[in-house]
């Protein structure tokens, strides 16, 4: 296996030689540019780094994957569009999927030809995910799916959906769930985008009305989807935290650079409050750095999803919010006139990132749910 520092050097050189794409603000423009960028990354061998070669990956370690991500973020390059496929559901298909699913679906997932979404949450099943009602009925050759999902990111653009469905109404709630892969062009699917706090139309409502799904699209066994779902959620908590750390560090370094160019490097113009806010963010990032070393150890040991992922995610939530709160707080009254750039801070970006940081404690399981998991599954406290 290629040595890590050599690999890092190759990635760094590759980014240095690239014309990085300029990402438009409007969501459709952004989608097209980032999809083309995914294709470029794929063709250059930078996607599926830790996936097996038979599905189009490179068969390297999860740490190679992290190193590449770090170089991407530090090069100020955008992430490819298909992150939900690449980082969340794709990993579960790689792990639990059938030969057919892996062979047919994963190469197109990597190249960005297929964009994936994650159909877990429902109007009546958010934190209590296992109470989901969207159902799949056995109709011989196919399953027939009916119901509704919500907050499904990128559903409007997606070709495929990893869908949690109820396949046994009579079983205890965790034991009647199956994990299906659904072609979003199937008749009977309606997608309605929702506007987020940031103004983006990123997540959607998705309606399923008697949608036929071939049985070969079932991941793992029937009624055994909960374990697969937990694998997916584990990626959304543990390894996501390590990836996000690199992004937060770079964002913070950019904020520091903006203040430095305003202050001219000296201390005289810098109010104590500005220094204290930056110091607070730096401390928070250092906490996350110490924490993610343990996550990396688990990834190296291929430990699989554990309740420890919830500890990472809970800490990430606090750190991410502390970082952006500290920076955006320095805009003070200028947040209403972002073009004036107080202390050199590019206000529009920080306002957007700060809004997005309010979502981190909701998606992937809320902070309250992570605390429940820590208390009950790590610490062994009794259920109330």
């Amino acid at each position, binding site marked *: 296996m290629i040595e890590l520092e050599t690999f890092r050097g190759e990635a760094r050189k590759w980014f240095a030689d690239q014309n990085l794409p300029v990402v438009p603000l409007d969501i459709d423009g952004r989608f097209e540019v980032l999809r083309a960028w995914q294709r470029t990354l794929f063709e250059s061998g930078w996607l599926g780094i830790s996936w097996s070669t038979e599905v189009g990956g490179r068969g390297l370690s999860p740490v190679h994957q992290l190193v590449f991500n770090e170089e991407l973020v530090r090069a100020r390059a955008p992430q490819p569009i298909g992150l939900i496929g690449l980082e969340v559901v794709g990993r579960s298909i790689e792990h639990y999927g059938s030969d057919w699913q892996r062979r047919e679906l994963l190469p197109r997932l990597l190249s960005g030809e297929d964009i994936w979404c994650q159909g877990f949450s429902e109007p009546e099943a958010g934190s209590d995910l296992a109470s989901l009602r969207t159902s799949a009925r056995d109709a011989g050759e196919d399953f027939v799916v009916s119901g509704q999902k919500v907050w499904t990111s990128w559903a409007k653009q997606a070709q495929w959906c990893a869908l949690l469905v109820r396949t046994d109404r009579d079983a205890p709630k965790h034991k009647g769930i199956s994990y299906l892969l659904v072609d979003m062009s199937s008749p009977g699917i309606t997608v309605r985008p929702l506007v987020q706090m940031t103004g983006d139309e990123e997540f959607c409502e998705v309606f399923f009305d008697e949608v036929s799904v071939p049985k070969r699209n079932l991941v793992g066994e029937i009624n055994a989807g909960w374990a697969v779902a937990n694998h997916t959620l584990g990626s959304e908590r543990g390894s996501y935290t390590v990836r996000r750390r690199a992004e937060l560090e770079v964002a913070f370094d950019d904020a520091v650079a903006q203040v430095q160019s305003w202050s001219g490097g000296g201390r005289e113009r810098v109010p104590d409050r*500005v*220094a204290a806010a930056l110091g607070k963010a730096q401390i928070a990032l250092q*906490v996350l750095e110490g924490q993610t070393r343990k996550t990396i150890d688990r990834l190296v040991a291929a430990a699989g999803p554990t309740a420890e992922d919830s500890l990472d995610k809970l800490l990430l939530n606090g750190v991410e919010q502390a970082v952006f709160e500290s920076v955006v707080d320095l805009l003070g009254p200028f947040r209403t006139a972002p073009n004036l750039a107080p202390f050199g801070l590019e206000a529009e970006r920080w306002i957007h990132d700060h809004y997005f940081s309010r979502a981190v404690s909701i998606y992937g399981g809320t902070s309250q749910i*992570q605390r429940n998991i820590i208390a009950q599954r790590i610490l062994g*406290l009794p259920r109330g």
Partner: protein
Amino acid sequence: MAEPDDQKLDLPIREYLDRAFDERRRLGMLTGTGTDRDFLRAVAAQGWFSLAIPESYGGLGLPLADLAPVFAALGEYLVPGPIVENCVLPSLLVERASAEGRSALLATVEDGAPVGLVAPHTGSTWADQLGSVRCTDGKLDGEMSLVRFGEQAELLVVVANDERTVCLVDPRTDGVIVVADGKGDPGSSTATVRFRGASILGGPAAEGRSAVALAAEIRGWMRMLVGCYLAGVARWSFDQTLTYVQQRQQFGRPIGSFQAVQHIVADMYASTRSLENMCAAAAEDLRDASPQAVDLRAACLKAYAAESARRVCENAIQMHGGIGYTFELSLHWYYEHALALRSWFGDERDLEREIGFAVLAGGAARNTTTQEVAG
């Protein structure tokens, strides 16, 4: 339950404390001066103070970073006294001190004579109220308040002239006047140390730029190891709480089954684990780091330790209810000592500012994950 990395260096120390540091002895210190000369003599004989002394001077020659798990253990047992001064100061100074200074330092390593640190040791908020010391032609003038174990110390390390001189002085010398400040911390007692033309021991250990660097090193290691001690305080307070919420019953069930309690305990756990992980990461990185690298890392660690250990202690008291507020239970000793250590060499509020200015001056270098895996 997942445990922090098993460390080796702290094991003999834990064994010794289980044997020799009983509740009577601890209470004697906590209600007395915060230390005990016999105890210091005994732990010196155990070799505690020679861990980081260079081998050429008869020590084990360990990097100070390796003492991180030792200080976490000391925090768990709430061992009071000038242990951090006696571990750090002789190790950092022995090679630089004058011949007289060196033999005085090595004597403290041998028999545990308390070493006091007369240095600016608060964040900038209180700096002006602390005092300052000048050193001219080998004579000291001025004063410094809140010197830990100022009265008990048998050797003083003095950071003078705005950190441009570091020297040693024997507190029994003429011109050294020590006045107790009163005792607001069970784990230490402090004093104001006044100098009226007192002679230093031999020549200064460092002057000019090398003194500034040495003062920063002293500050950095104090912050780092006190941060580790606070991690131990948090660990003990958390462990007590986890046990208690499973035993104590109200409304016909353990209080640990109530979600309001579970969430606070989960947060205490997250604070404790992340602080421990931060200590382990810093210990790993600072083993052979440059003294400059120590400064910012240690400041971040101390800031987080100051904030999180305090919060864990407060939540521990809250989760125990009325009994948590009693003198009889040890929770308050941990809390009170944590509050005192929190401010020594900067609490999170002063450090945030200091770190912010350091970051703006270009001090923050980012690690890469490969360095972390390799480490």
